[in-house]
């Protein structure tokens, strides 16, 4: 299947600062693709290039197999960096402009998307009178207008309260179920981990990794064990063959194995034979946060 987006060797500098260094990856159709990275890692620069706001120094990209153009952008609902609207116009009037430029949606759709983001009651208020969260909701409404197949969200939950964050997360899940491709930049790891199927991690303009979330996260198996005497447990497990590292965390001991090599039965038997009865034995998935810090820390 042709990827929705393919990026080949994109580089971009601002003077002496290299914002992106030869970045390449592909976004498969129907994926929720998270672009992760600390502040200043190049996430927004990347999305800006893909939407023709910035010009890449080198490299190419293709949407739906075609070079980026106004026609490809019209098919993509995008929220880039901040909600950008005419301050003196109402939500409805602003969406009329979005609709007229992109050709996406109808008058009825405008009401519909405002209902989705819960702005229907304030649809005739001026944008300048909106709170930060309401502005963000309007930007999401604009992206949803006309039900595009591809959505680009740059920090979609910026400025939202906890309820708003949960609602947007739910909305993204629903969109994914309906087969939309969603490209989402974020530095909120929890947010990405909860909704994304694929991810790319950027650091100082370099792509560290990209792929399916499971693949990226599970480059090792983590087995968590515990017993009445964790210190003794750790010293016994030191003799267990095949692990790559071992750590004691409070009452629990974590044993790390190369991916696919952890065998719980063998660990259980080994401990039992050494006279230790385990009260905990489970395989832990590495959290995105752990992985992220591992990759991005110098």
């Amino acid at each position, binding site marked *: 299947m042709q990827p929705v987006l393919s990026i080949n060797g994109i580089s971009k500098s601002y003077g002496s600062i290299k914002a992106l260094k030869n970045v390449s990856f592909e976004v498969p159709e129907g994926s929720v693709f998270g672009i992760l990275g600390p502040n200043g890692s190049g996430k927004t620069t990347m999305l800006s290039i893909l939407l023709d706001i910035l010009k890449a120094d080198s490299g190419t990209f293709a949407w739906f197999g075609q070079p980026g153009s106004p*026609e490809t952008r019209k098919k993509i609902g995008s929220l880039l960096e901040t909600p*950008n609207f005419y301050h003196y116009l109402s939500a409805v009037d602003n969406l009329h402009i979005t609709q007229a430029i992109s050709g996406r949606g109808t008058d009825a759709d405008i009401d519909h998307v405002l209902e989705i983001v819960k702005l229907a009651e304030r649809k005739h208020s001026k944008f300048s009178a909106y709170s930060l969260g309401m502005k963000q909701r309007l930007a999401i409404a604009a992206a949803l207008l006309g039900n595009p197949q591809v959505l680009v969200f740059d920090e979609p939950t910026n400025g939202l309260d906890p309820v708003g964050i949960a609602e947007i997360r739910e909305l993204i899940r629903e969109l994914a179920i309906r087969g939309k491709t969603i490209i989402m930049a974020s530095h909120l790891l929890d947010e990405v981990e909860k909704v994304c199927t694929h991810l790319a991690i950027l650091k100082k303009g370099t792509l560290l990794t990209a792929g399916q979330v499971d693949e990226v996260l599970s480059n090792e198996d983590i087995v968590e064990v515990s017993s009445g005497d964790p210190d003794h447990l750790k010293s016994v497990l030191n003799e267990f063959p095949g692990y790559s590292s071992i750590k004691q965390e409070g009452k629990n001991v974590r044993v790390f194995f190369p991916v696919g090599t952890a065998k719980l039965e063998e660990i259980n038997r080994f401990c039992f034979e050494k006279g230790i009865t385990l009260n905990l034995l489970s395989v832990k998935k590495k959290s995105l946060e752990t992985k992220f810090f591992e990759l991005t820390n110098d």
Partner: protein
Amino acid sequence: MLTLIKIEWLKIKKYPAFWWMLGIVALTYPGVNSMFYYGYEKATNGKEMTNNIAKFLLGNPFSFPESWHSVAYFSSFFILLPSILVIMLVTNEYNFKTHRQNIIDGWSRQQYITSKLFDVLIVSLIVTLVYVLAAAGFGVYADSSSVSQWTAQLQYIPLFLLQTFAQLSIAFLLGYLVKKAFIALGIFLFYYLVVENIAVAYARFKLNDIGRFLPFEISDRIIPAPAFFSRFGKDAKASYDHALSLIPEHVIYTILLTTAIWLICYAVHKRRDL
């Protein structure tokens, strides 16, 4: 094309500053000309010899067909009013970051500049309409016996439109490049009111009038001072006739400069990061 104009109209029609500026222009143009008109009335309406001399010298600059020329000349002093609006229209886009959003939503960079060109054209047409109404009003009011001559000197309508569009294009370029409304307005007012006037006056006496090639002066010269200025002696007549003879040349310079301004905008916008 029509879609671009419709979208720009969606942006402009609810912009309060647009209507304020339109109202101010609609009051200023007739207002300023009224001041000159009443000055003229006062000077010529008495029964004394001086009044008759004044009438003889001035003719009636506000009767047809001369009103097309006089009203265009006096109104053109106030180009800075619509200029403020044009600068606001372009710097607002930076301020709201909608210059980015318009592209994200699917405009090409070229379409963005074309839409702004239409903004400047729309404002120029509205200002020209106000001028036409004012000039026609004065023509009818000042001397009803000359109404039949209204078709002479109609060339001042397209000349006024060209001058307005050319000077508003300079304002646009400034707003487009500077991006910040107050800085652009400051530079515009200082240059338009102070720098260029001094430079033109200096060049007229010392530098073989090379000041006529300065940005605003190029198009200022397509509407020279009204005919009555030529009635104050032989030199004045010669200088008026010379100014009239330069109009076609300055029309070409104006078109060239304005074309260059827009080509610069298209070229810069095609390449620059937004």
